[in-house]
């Protein structure tokens, strides 16, 4: 058979679909919505996964973060009399980590404290992050204006800081912020840089213990330690709380990606020995990422499975209409058989029709899916990514739906006896 003849058969087969436009469109709708929802679900799933990667990837999958956390306080009065609560990672821990654990590229200390920042009569609650210059690079904290913290700042114990632009607005600083003095805990710090406006999101925020309510201020590690020490006193609704945490965070960068989990286990056992009271947490972005990805994939699969049910229903719809069509077109089938059509020609004709319906339905469904994704992301702010593979998958599934749903009606049509089919009225 010549392909051109196939085309001709397809063309004549389509006449039948065009001849009954309403029926064709209604038959198609099932596949349209089925494919549309599959596309939308896959896009939302891919979007969520991308967001996850961005969020956790920002932490660096080669990094391990150790946070100091306040242990559960036993509720006894004798303990309460000790008014300075001291917990968390110590300088000693940091030294031990650097000295004993192999394969560590960097182990960056971070000290965090809540401070009130004044500018004239305006004030802002801020979180002071005493960090090394590498810290800013590691988490892609880049400045949009001015410069970042440097080693020189650290060495010279300079009183400089890098802030978020939101803080400037709150403090009413609208002129050039570089060199502007801020009063932090009775010390004057000069702004040298303003960070780009991309805050940590979701999990990254939690892992780095970035407080949502207060602004971040980054100052040189040595300066902060020398000026403010490690103790901090906070007053809260009449009571005073003093804490002494030497290091709030240590960010460890592992040289070899394969060694991240091994290193994390070594860190875990080291800290477990030093801190039986569990006043720390170990965050391994790589581990979190794979866990979250697994969860996300299960979720995606569930979503797609649910969406596929509508595709299945669409396929059943096609099969149903086609069966009705076979009865309706019995005479035509008889005529075609009398004119020399073999069984396989009749099968091919019906399969062509069902596959055309489902493929066009699939194509329209892809557009509907894209539209649906646009609407959803517009109104909910969810992240979505329509991938080429999801489009290809949906189209091939809808084609397959057409073939499968056409097989039974087509075989019925081909199995008709030409004589009785011809006599059918």
């Amino acid at each position, binding site marked *: 058979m010549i392909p051109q*003849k196939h085309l001709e058969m397809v063309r004549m087969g389509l006449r*039948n679909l065009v001849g009954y436009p309403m029926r064709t469109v209604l038959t198609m709708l099932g596949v349209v919505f089925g494919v549309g929802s599959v596309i939308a679900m896959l896009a939302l799933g891919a979007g969520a996964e991308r967001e996850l990667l961005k969020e956790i990837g920002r932490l660096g999958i080669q990094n391990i973060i150790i946070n100091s956390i306040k242990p559960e306080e036993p509720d006894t009065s004798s303990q309460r009399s000790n008014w300075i609560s001291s917990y968390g990672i110590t300088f000693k821990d940091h030294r031990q980590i650097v000295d004993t654990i192999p394969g560590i590229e960097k182990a960056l200390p971070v000290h965090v404290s809540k401070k009130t920042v004044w500018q004239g009569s305006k004030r802002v609650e801020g979180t002071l992050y005493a960090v090394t210059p590498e810290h800013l690079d590691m988490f892609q904290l880049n400045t949009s204006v001015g410069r970042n913290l440097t080693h020189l700042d650290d060495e010279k114990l300079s009183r400089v800081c890098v802030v978020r632009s939101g803080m400037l607005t709150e403090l009413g600083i609208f002129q050039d912020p570089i060199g502007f003095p801020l009063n932090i805990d009775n010390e004057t710090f000069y702004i040298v840089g303003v960070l780009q406006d991309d805050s940590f999101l979701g999990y990254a925020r939690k892992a780095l213990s970035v407080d949502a309510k207060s602004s971040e201020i980054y100052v040189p590690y040595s300066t902060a330690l020398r000026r403010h020490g490690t103790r901090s006193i906070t007053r809260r609704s009449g009571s005073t709380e003093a804490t002494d945490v030497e290091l709030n965070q240590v960010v460890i960068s592992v040289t070899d990606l394969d060694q991240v989990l091994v290193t994390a286990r070594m860190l875990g056992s080291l800290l477990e020995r030093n801190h039986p009271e569990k006043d720390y947490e170990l965050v391994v972005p790589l581990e979190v990422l794979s866990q979250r990805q697994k969860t996300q994939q299960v979720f995606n699969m569930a979503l797609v499975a649910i969406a596929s049910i509508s595709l299945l229903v669409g396929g059943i719809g096609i099969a149903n209409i086609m069966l009705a069509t076979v009865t309706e077109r019995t005479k035509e089938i008889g005529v075609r058989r009398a004119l020399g059509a073999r069984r396989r020609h009749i099968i091919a004709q019906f399969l062509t029709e069902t596959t055309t319906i489902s493929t066009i339905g699939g194509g329209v469904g892809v557009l509907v899916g894209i539209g649906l994704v646009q609407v959803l992301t517009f109104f909910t702010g969810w992240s979505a990514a329509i991938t080429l593979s999801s489009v290809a998958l949906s189209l091939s599934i809808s084609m397959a739906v057409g073939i499968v749903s056409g097989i039974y009606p087509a075989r019925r049509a081909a199995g008709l006896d030409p004589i009785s089919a011809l006599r059918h009225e």
Partner: protein
Amino acid sequence: MKAPIISLQGVHKYYGEHEPRLHVLKGINLDVAEGEYVSITGTSGSGKSTLLNLLGCLDNTSEGAYLLNGTDVSSYSDDELSKIRNEDIGFIFQSFNLIPQLSVFENVQVPLLYGPRSIAATTDLCHQVIESVGLSDRSEHRPTQLSGGECQRVAIARALINDPVLLLADEPTGNLDTNTGDEVLALIDDLHQQGRSVVMITHDPDVANRSQRRVDLRDGIIVEAGAA
């Protein structure tokens, strides 16, 4: 005497697999020569439809041989019979049996879809055949836009498209009034004049009289065969 285009030799046809079977054709012997115009008449139930189905290769004989153009087709498979119907037989039906969603031109093309020739190479041929039945100006019309006589002429064009050895007409004027019926019969007469072999089934003696030879069928047996 020319070689017979059709030769039925002791043909029986039963329906049903178990006794008592319905015995419809009871030993038919019939030869139709090349270029001959034969009409088969008979009352309803006489077996003429069954005979037509056998002649049209829509069915197999139960007993006996059917030689079409010198080849015994009585035990051919479904696919082989389809091929013969496509290439060697041109059907003309009582109710025209055009496909309503296709145009006149496309209806004439339908047999080509199932044959070896390419559609593109036969466009001219289709135009010629449609012209020969006088419907050149109607080739883009749908069957529903045509009169009964025109529909039957489309059906004749469709029957001719593969240049069959045999034209098989089943009550071709049954759904037409006398005048249009006469036009269609005149067209069939013309085709016969051009040398086509025609077998026509009819219950109308006037129609049958236009053929060269009448075969009268009664209860599955040929009772009268002779010049009309």
